[in-house]
C-alpha cells in the first residue's frame, strides 16, 4: 500500500496507536480465521488425509492431477458457470425492469412492491431451501396441486427428482431469492440520476428507450457493476440453498463446486482431496477478480 500524507492536524506518529488499536483485532481475527486456514488448506491439498490424526500420506501433485480429470468437479464447475450466466442474463435484467417500474413516481403501489420483492432476500438460505422443497414435493407439493388445478390430466414433473431438471429447479429458487437484492441496488442507483436530465430529454422529444439507453444506464454504471460483482461471487459460492434442497443430487445433477467440496471433505472424510477442490475454487475466484479488475472495473473509469 502506498504511503499517504495525512491531511488535517494529526501527525502520523499520533495516528499509530489508533491504527494498532483499531486494526489489530480485525487483523488478528482475519489472520486466524482466513489467512491461516487458506495456507493450511494449501498444505492439506498435497496429502491423502481423512482429517483424523496426523498427515502421513504425501501425494505430491497427485490430488491436482486427479482434480483436472475429475468428471464431478467438471460438472460442478459447469453448473456454477450456468448459474452465473443465467443470473446475468435473466435475473439482473428482471431486477432492472422491476426497479424501473417501482421507481416510477406515478406508480401507486411502489412502496408495497419494493418491500414485497425484497422479502425473499430476507429469508435465510436454509429456510428458503426447505420451503422450496415443500413447493416442489412430487407427492404433496404446491407445484403438483397447481398442475392438478390448472392442467388436469397433465403429469406434473418431479423437478428435484431428475438430474436433468434439478439445476433449473434450483436456478428458479436462486432468482426468486436474490432478484430483490439487485432490484434494491438499482433503485438506489436510479435515485442518483438527476430528474432534470430526464425531464429535459423528454422535452427534447427523446423516446423512453433512448432515455434508458443514453441517460439511465450510463448513470447507473456503478450500481450495475456492483450487482454484477455480487451476482458472480454469489453464484460461485452458492451452497446453502443447494444443500438444503438436495445436497447436490440426484446423481450430481445439482452439484456445485462448494457442495462437492463439502461432500468430499466433510461427508466422505477426504479432507486432503477436499482441500484440493477448495484450492481449485480459490484460483478460479482469483482469476475472476483479475478479469473483473482488468475488464469491468477499468471500463468504468
Amino acid at each position: 500500500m502506498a504511503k499517504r500524507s495525512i491531511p488535517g492536524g494529526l501527525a502520523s506518529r499520533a495516528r499509530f496507536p489508533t491504527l494498532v488499536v483499531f486494526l489489530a483485532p480485525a487483523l488478528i481475527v482475519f489472520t486466524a480465521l482466513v489467512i491461516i486456514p487458506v495456507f493450511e488448506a494449501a498444505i492439506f491439498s498435497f496429502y491423502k488425509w481423512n482429517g483424523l490424526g496426523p498427515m502421513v500420506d504425501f501425494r505430491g501433485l497427485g490430488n491436482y492431477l486427479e482434480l483436472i480429470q475429475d468428471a464431478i468437479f467438471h460438472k460442478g464447475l459447469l453448473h456454477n458457470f450456468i448459474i452465473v450466466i443465467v443470473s446475468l442474463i435473466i435475473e439482473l435484467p428482471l431486477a432492472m425492469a422491476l426497479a424501473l417500474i417501482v421507481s416510477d413516481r406515478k406508480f401507486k403501489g411502489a412502496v408495497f412492491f419494493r418491500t414485497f420483492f425484497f422479502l425473499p432476500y430476507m429469508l435465510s438460505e436454509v429456510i428458503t431451501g426447505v420451503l422450496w422443497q415443500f413447493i416442489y414435493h412430487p407427492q404433496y407439493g404446491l407445484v403438483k396441486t397447481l398442475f392438478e388445478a390448472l392442467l388436469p390430466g397433465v403429469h406434473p414433473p418431479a423437478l428435484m427428482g431428475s438430474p436433468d431438471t434439478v439445476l433449473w429447479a434450483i436456478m428458479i429458487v436462486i432468482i426468486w431469492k436474490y432478484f430483490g437484492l439487485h432490484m434494491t441496488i438499482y433503485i438506489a442507483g436510479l435515485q442518483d440520476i438527476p430528474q432534470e436530465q430526464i425531464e429535459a430529454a423528454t422535452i427534447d422529444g427523446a423516446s423512453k428507450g433512448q432515455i434508458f439507453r443514453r441517460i439511465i444506464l450510463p448513470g447507473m454504471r456503478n450500481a450495475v457493476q456492483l450487482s454484477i460483482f455480487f451476482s458472480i461471487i454469489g453464484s460461485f459460492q452458492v451452497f446453502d440453498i443447494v444443500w438444503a434442497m438436495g445436497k447436490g443430487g440426484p446423481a450430481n445433477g445439482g452439484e456445485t463446486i462448494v457442495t462437492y467440496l463439502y461432500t468430499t471433505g466433510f461427508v466422505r472424510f477426504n479432507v486432503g482431496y477436499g482441500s484440493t477442490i477448495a484450492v481449485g475454487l480459490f484460483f478460479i475466484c482469483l482469476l475472476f477478480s483479475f478479469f473483473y479488475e482488468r475488464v469491468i472495473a477499468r471500463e468504468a473509469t
Partner: protein
Amino acid sequence: MSRKTKLTAFVMAFALVAGGLAMADQVTVNWWHIGTAANDKAMLQKFADDYVKANPNVKIEITVLENEAFKSKLTTVMQGGNPPDLFQSWGGGVLAQYAQAGLLKDITKDVKGTAFGKSMASGVWQVYSYNGKVYGAPHDMGGITFWYNKELLAKVGYKTFPTTWDDFLKLVKKLKAAGITPIALGGGDKWPAMHMWSYIALRLGGGQLFEDTFSGKNAKGFENPTFIKAGQMLADLAALKPFQDGFLGATYNDEAALMGNGEAAMELMGQWAPNVEKDNSSDKTGLGAKLSTAPFPAIKGGKGKITEVIGGGNGYAVGKNAPQAAVDFLKYLDNKKNNTTWAQVSSIIPTVKGAEVGLTDPNAKMVKAIVDKCTFFQLYLDQFLSPAAGGTVNDAVQNILAGTATPAQAMAAIQKAFVAK
C-alpha cells in the same frame, strides 16, 4: 495484614478448596442420540433422569439430532478431535476409522469376561470392535427386510410376500397396473437404494462373494461380474418404474411417509421402519396391523440363500475423553431392564439376552426371527466400508438408478474407492 484479614483469607481459601473438591466429584456426560421420534426421545430422557437420580454426582447433557444432521455435526467435532462422551454409532468401518485415529475410548476391560460383555452375543460386539478392542455397545441389532402393506398386496391377489425374484417382479407389475406405487424409495438419501443393490448382489453371489471381496480373494473386487449383474438387475427393476415420482430426489422420511400413509405398497428397510413410518404419517398412527415384513426374495440360480441377511443396528460409541461415568451410564442404558423397555417402546431388536420378552410388536418379532435364523450376516455396506468407499457405493447405486452410469462404470467407481482404502 491484620489477624482478621488473615483469618478471612484462610476461610476463603478453604472454601475454594472445598468447593473445588465438591466440583471434582461432579462429572458431566455428553450424550448425542438420534431418537427424534417422540416415544424414543421421552424414553431416552427417562433413562437419563433415572440414572442421574441414582447417581446425583453425574450430569447428563443430551443432544438430540436428526440422522443426517447428526452425521454432519459429528464429523465436525471429530475432525476437531473433540468427540462427545457417548454418541450414536452404527459400528463397522466408520467406527474403525475413529478408533484408528485414537478418538475413541477402549472399553475392552469393561466388556471382555464381564457380566456386561456376557449379556450380549459375541457377534454383536464384533460390530463395535476394531483390532480386537471394543469401543462401544449396541442395543439394537436387526436386519433389512421388505416391509409391506398387506391390504395393498391383497388387492392384487398376494396374501404373502413373494419368496422368489421372478414372483417379486410379477407383483411389482401387478401393483403398477393397479395404479399403486409398488415401492417407496428415498433415493435422494442414497443409502435406502444402496441396500437394494447389495441385497441383489448377496442373493446372486452369497455371503462367500462378500467375504472373498473383503479378503481380496476375489481379485476383481467389485468389478466381479456378479456385482455388475446385480447392478444390471437393479437397472432392469428401475425400468419397470416401480418407485414413486421423483424418488431420486426423495429423502428417507418421504419414503416413510408414503408407507405410513398407505400410498406405497412396500419399502426395503431396517427394523426401525414401523416406528419411522408412524412418525412420518399424516395421522401419526402408521399402518398398524396392515404392516408386515418378509425377507428379501431369493434369486433363481443365485448362490445366496433367502436366510442370508444384511443388517446392523444401533449403539453408542464412547469418545476418547469420556469419564468412567459415561461407560457406567452406557452399561445402565444397556441393562436387561432398559433394553426390554426399549424393545417395548420403539421396537428395536434387543441385543441383551432375555430382553426379547419386551418385544410385543409382531413385526419386530418377525425381524428378530429372521435375524435369529440367519445363515450369513453382513453389516450395511456403507457402514462396513470406510466412509469414502461406503459413500462411493451409495453414489454408484444412485447413478445406476438415474441412468447416469452403466452398472459396469458404477462398479468400477466402487472398486477404485475400495482399493484406495
